[in-house]
């Protein structure tokens, strides 16, 4: 089996097709059979997941340096644990769960809301461009407003309790299904929904206080 997988790695990497184009479950199987001698499949897995993992650690940790540390920690766990993964088709969910749990563990150890280091590292540098999905160039006012909104949203999120911040990041920012969040937090589906609702109300209170100019309450009938 190991010999077969070495051949697959060699064929793929020499045939012009890149390992990154393989589905994650195939990469996980390759990692299982080739690590630690050959790290190419693992590097491809890192390349495939690094942005997703880092975005989650950044949003949960609220600090670039901590986010990088935790993202590194996640991939070290992947490196050590991918060989024991029973079902390689679950690799994406497994990595996501590792990411969330690693951050929650770190946050519990830290036992405080993150330092406001984000303020310094927040958003684009003056000469840095922001990527927008539409092709229309935003006006300087739009850029400023968007920057202000981002700052307010992040400040509010990172001022919240760990659990509240966690469910909002997972559900509303990252759009994860309830079931996955419940599994990551090891609570019931009903408890997750309840927690999400309470966290949203808590967010609204805090956001309204921190950035009153950006909160425009709607009438219930308009929603």
């Amino acid at each position, binding site marked *: 089996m190991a010999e077969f997988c070495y051949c697959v790695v060699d064929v793929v990497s020499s045939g012009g097709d890149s390992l990154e184009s393989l589905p994650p479950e195939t990469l996980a199987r390759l990692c299982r059979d080739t690590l*630690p001698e050959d*790290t190419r499949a693992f*590097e491809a897995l*890192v*390349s495939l997941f*690094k*942005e997703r993992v*880092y*975005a989650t650690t*950044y*949003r949960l940790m609220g600090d*670039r340096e901590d986010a*990088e540390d935790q*993202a*590194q920690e996640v*991939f*070290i766990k992947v*490196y050590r644990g991918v060989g024991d993964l029973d079902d390689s088709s679950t690799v994406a969910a497994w990595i996501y769960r590792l990411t969330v749990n690693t951050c929650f563990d770190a946050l519990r150890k830290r036992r405080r809301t993150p330092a406001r280091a984000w303020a310094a590292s927040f958003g684009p540098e003056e000469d840095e461009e*922001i*990527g927008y*999905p539409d092709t229309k160039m935003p006006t300087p006012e739009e850029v400023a407003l*968007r920057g202000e*909104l*981002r700052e307010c*949203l*992040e400040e509010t*999120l990172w001022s919240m309790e760990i659990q509240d911040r966690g469910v*909002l990041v997972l559900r*509303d*920012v*990252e*759009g994860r299904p309830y079931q996955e969040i419940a599994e990551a937090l090891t609570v019931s589906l*009903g408890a997750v*929904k*309840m927690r*999400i*609702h*309470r966290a*949203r*109300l808590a*967010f*609204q209170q805090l*956001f309204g206080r921190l950035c009153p100019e950006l909160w425009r*309450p*709607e*009438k*219930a*009938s*308009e*929603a």
Partner: protein
Amino acid sequence: MTTGDTGFDLTDLADGTLTGPEWEEWLSAHPDLAVQVSMARQVRALLMELRAMPVEMPADFEAILMERLRRDDTFLGLLDLWLAGFGRVLLELLGALFGAPSPPESAPSGTGR
């Protein structure tokens, strides 16, 4: 009906998992809860804005990770060697002290896996 009792349904209503005239009617009958659902929808919409805002990866992330893994592997390898050597010395010492037979020589290569 308290919020605690209905939190489950309110999240479904805010997320649009529960929709339809019967739910709109239910909301009209519970104006205070309708306000909560409206707020929750607004918060959800605001936070979804963050999803579209890119998070920039730190430079050299992969290089740092691979270097760290290489260092860890080297350290673990050395630790393994050291423990194996230490174990052997300990066994020899115990053998000398209590007269236990000395540890067997390593199996000749090719006799097993």
